[in-house]
Every structure is written in C-alpha cells, then in structure tokens.
C-alpha cells in the first residue's frame, strides 16, 4: 500500500523500489528488508518511522550505496545508486564517532570538499555559511570533542550542508541528545528546509518526531520490513513544538501512525 505510481516515480528526486536485504547465510539467514518501496519529491521532508530493529539503518545503507541490496534499486535524480552518490549527504546517529576527532570543526566540515578538489577559498566560504546556518560560526576552530552532543550533531549537519547535496539523509540523528536539545535540533532542520530548500529524509523510531517534522511519514512494519503506509501530514509549513503538538490534527495523525505500526506488528505475529 504505497502511494507510488509510475508518473510520480519518474519525476521523483529519490525513488526506492523493491528493496530487499538479508543478513547471514544458511540457517542463520535473516531477512531484514522485504520489498521496500517509496519515493521522495524535491523539497519534501520525508520521515521514515519504524520500531528499533525494523531495519531502518539497513534501509538507509542500502539506499545510499553503502550496502548492496539483494534485490531492488534506488534511483536518485533518475540514476541508479550503486555507490554513495555525490548528491546525497548522510548524517549518522553517532555524531561523536562520525566526526573525526583529529580535525577541527571547520576541518571536518571542509574535509569532503577538499577530497572532491574544491578550491580553498570556496571551501572556506561554504564552511562558514554552513556553520552559520547551524549557529556554530564561533566554534570553527574548536575540536568536536570540545563541544556538547547537540553541538557536535550540528557540526555533522553543517558538514552535510556544505557538501551541497540535493538530499540530506539522517539516521536517527537526535536519538542520543537530551529532550531540550532534541527539540532545538528538530526546529533547526525544519528551518534549514525552509531557508535552503534541501530535501530531507529522516529516519526515527519516535512517532511524535516523525509526525512533527514530516510532510509525509513512511511507516515501516517490523522485520522483514515493508512499507505499511505513507501518511501525508497536513500541518502546514510552520510548526511549533508546543502549539503544533497540541493540535487535534497532530494528535490524530500520531494515533494513526501508532495504530499502523501496531497493526503491522500483530499482522506479522499472526503469520
């Protein structure tokens, strides 16, 4: 039950179709993904929600070219993804391990650009812009480990922005920061989407977060994972941590997503 039809797929920025992946061999073989399918339009804020262990990280690694799927394919701007595409930037949950501790903040942000052969003045400018966008212009010379967790994740987001991707893919980016920081970072990415027009694909196990951020929520079932539903979120562009979350529409969307996940789990158990 996905909302993808062929004309949509053709115009989509990102399309995932028939993605399947198993781990292990022989008796220990375990299917994690089974026929995952969804699309993202340019400018979309898509969230993917599913319980822990559902295979969300596996899905991201397959669609970003880090891991070869058993079947199916991902297309970005129409081209099949075989290795990490230059138009996609990843933000990992574990920021402290994703940032390189021997490089300063600005060093981390410019590293992918330097490797791509971008000239130094342009690297500088892009890093400054990206750090300003996440509110860290004054921390450029510090090392990541001198920053708080929330600030480190901002650095990782700045690195992704400076890379200049068409789509920013985030794997549970706020799962290991405190609630207050988490709310700030959620509003930061909404603001970035508004100002910079980047397409976001954010994976989370948190239903509230999935609904609060998204234009559309892709709901995953438990393993082997398929897309249970794609729920459109008509809460408008402007969101507010208190006001939006108190709206009846938000509450009913949250319940709907919750029920979909539970129903999928019961369905799987029945089989």
């Amino acid at each position: 039950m996905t909302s993808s039809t062929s004309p949509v797929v053709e115009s989509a920025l990102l399309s995932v179709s028939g993605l399947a992946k198993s781990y292990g061999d022989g008796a220990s073989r375990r299917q994690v993904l089974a026929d995952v399918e969804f699309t993202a339009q340019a400018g979309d804020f898509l969230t993917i929600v599913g319980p822990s262990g559902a295979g969300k990280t596996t899905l991201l690694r397959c669609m970003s070219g880090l891991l070869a799927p058993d079947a199916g394919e991902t297309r970005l701007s129409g081209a099949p993804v075989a290795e990490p595409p230059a138009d996609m930037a990843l933000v990992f949950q574990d920021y402290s391990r994703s940032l390189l501790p021997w490089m300063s903040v600005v060093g981390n942000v410019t590293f992918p650009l330097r490797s791509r052969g971008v000239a130094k003045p342009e690297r500088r400018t892009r890093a400054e812009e990206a750090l300003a966008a996440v509110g860290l212009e004054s921390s450029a010379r510090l090392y990541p480990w001198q920053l708080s967790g929330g600030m480190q994740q901002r650095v990782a987001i700045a690195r992704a922005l400076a890379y200049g991707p068409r789509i920013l893919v985030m794997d549970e980016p706020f799962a290991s920061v405190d609630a207050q920081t988490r709310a700030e970072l959620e509003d930061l990415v909404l603001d970035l989407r508004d100002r910079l027009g980047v397409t976001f694909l954010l994976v989370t196990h948190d239903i509230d977060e999935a609904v609060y951020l998204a234009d559309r929520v892709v709901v995953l079932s438990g393993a082997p994972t398929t897309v249970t539903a794609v729920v459109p979120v008509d809460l408008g562009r402007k969101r507010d941590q208190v006001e939006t979350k108190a709206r009846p529409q938000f509450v009913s969307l949250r319940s709907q997503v919750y029920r979909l996940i539970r129903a999928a789990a019961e369905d799987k158990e029945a089989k």
Partner: protein
Amino acid sequence: MTAATGTRARGVARRAGGVPGGARRVWAVKAGFVALLAAVWEAAVRFGDLGTFPAPTELCRALTDLVGDGEIGGPVLDTLTSWALGLLVSAAIGVPVGLVLGVSASAYRLCRFLLDFLRTIPSLALVPLAVLLYGSGLGSKMLLIVFTCVWPILLQTVYGVRDIDPVAAETCRSYRIRPSHRALFLILPSAAGYLATGVRIAAGVSLLISLSAEIIIPSPGIGQAITSAQLGGAIPAMYAWIAVAGVLGVLINLLFTRVERRALRWHPSQRQGGGR
C-alpha cells in the same frame, strides 16, 4: 596491554600535578629524594665495601673527564647515528607494510606465519651474519636494529588500522573521500595512537640493540667504549660510559613521550579537560 596502561598512568600523573604550586612541590620532593639516595650511596661506598663500585662523586669526576677532553662526542654520535637511522628505516618499512597488512585480511593471513617466524629469531643470533655482510661498521648495527625494531612498529600499525571506527569509515565512504585522503586523514590518524606506542617501544629497543651490537661485534659507539674502558682498567670511566648510556635512554623516552603528547592532542588519552 602495556601501551594502554602507560598512557592512562601518564594522564593521571598530569592531573595530579595540575596545580602550578603543586607541580613545583612535586619537583622539589623528587629532587630531594634523588639527593637523599645519592647521599646514602656515597656513604655506602665510603664506609662499606662495594668492590669497584664508584661513589657518586667519583662517577661525576669520571663523567666530567669524558666531557672535558671531548672523548664523549665520538661514541655518542656513533651510537645515536645507528639508533636514529635504524629507527627511521624500521618505520619506513614497518608503517607501509603494517598499513597494507592491516587493511587486507588476506594479505595478513598470507604473511602471518612468516611474520611470527622472523619475529621470534633473537636478533643477536644474526650477529655473525651481520659481520659477514657488513664487517664492524654501521651496516651491521643497522641490520640488527632494523631486524628487531621493525616488528613492534609493523604490528602496532596493523592493530591501529584494524581499530578504525566503523562509523568514521562509513562516513568517509558516504562522502566519497578519495583513497589517498582516506589513507592520510582516516587510516593514519586512526592508527596514530598505536603507531606512536610502537615507535616509542622501538626507540628503546633500537638503543638497546645499538649498545649490544657495539659490545659484541665490537663496533664503534658507547658499547665499545664501555668494553675498552673495562679492558684498559679504567673502571670509573667504564661506569661513566654506562651512565651516559642510561641518560641517553631516559632522554630518548622523554623525547618520544613529549612528541606523542603533542601529536596526539586530540586522542582521548591525551585530552586535557572537556571532551568525552
């Protein structure tokens, strides 16, 4: 592992001396303790019977004589040259080979037996071979040093490369970091902690083998100076040369500890304040 405990112990020591006044007091206590030991030693020689063992005053006189007539320069230079060159060549071989064996599991499996075999040969067993090939010159010492020092460097590099954080590696892959940058900015810094330990161990071993080779072959250097002094009956001079070797060892260890601390400022074991 000794390396890990070493760095941790150092971190603790530094924290203890964190207060400036406290640091000065620690130094004063250390100096006082050394002075006390020297006094006990002097008394033991004067009033006891320690054979040819010199008193600190005699030792100091012998040392001043060595320095005074410039006799000290040649042997120290000879020993340091073989020490440094041997270490350099060991690193030049050990690091690249270690990188390759660390990255490629199949290459490691292929070489493992040979590696373990060569590593267990005591280098002093190679003295006759070295003399046959290079006589009593620098070449002989170098052969023995490199044959001994390449292993700690190589193995530590392998361990370091294996210890690359998978998240950091995946991040580099997702950002399409090119292979040369990967080697330089991901693999090498990841392995740097291990590598520094390997080089520090090798630096000590290099001095040890230098001296041993100089005594056994014999070959010009501090080791030969010790033997000559003993054979010539200049017993205080012999002790002075031994002391020179000891001081050199301490200085080398100090130097490498310093360099390591500066180069690995970012490393969790070296961070001062803040950080996780």
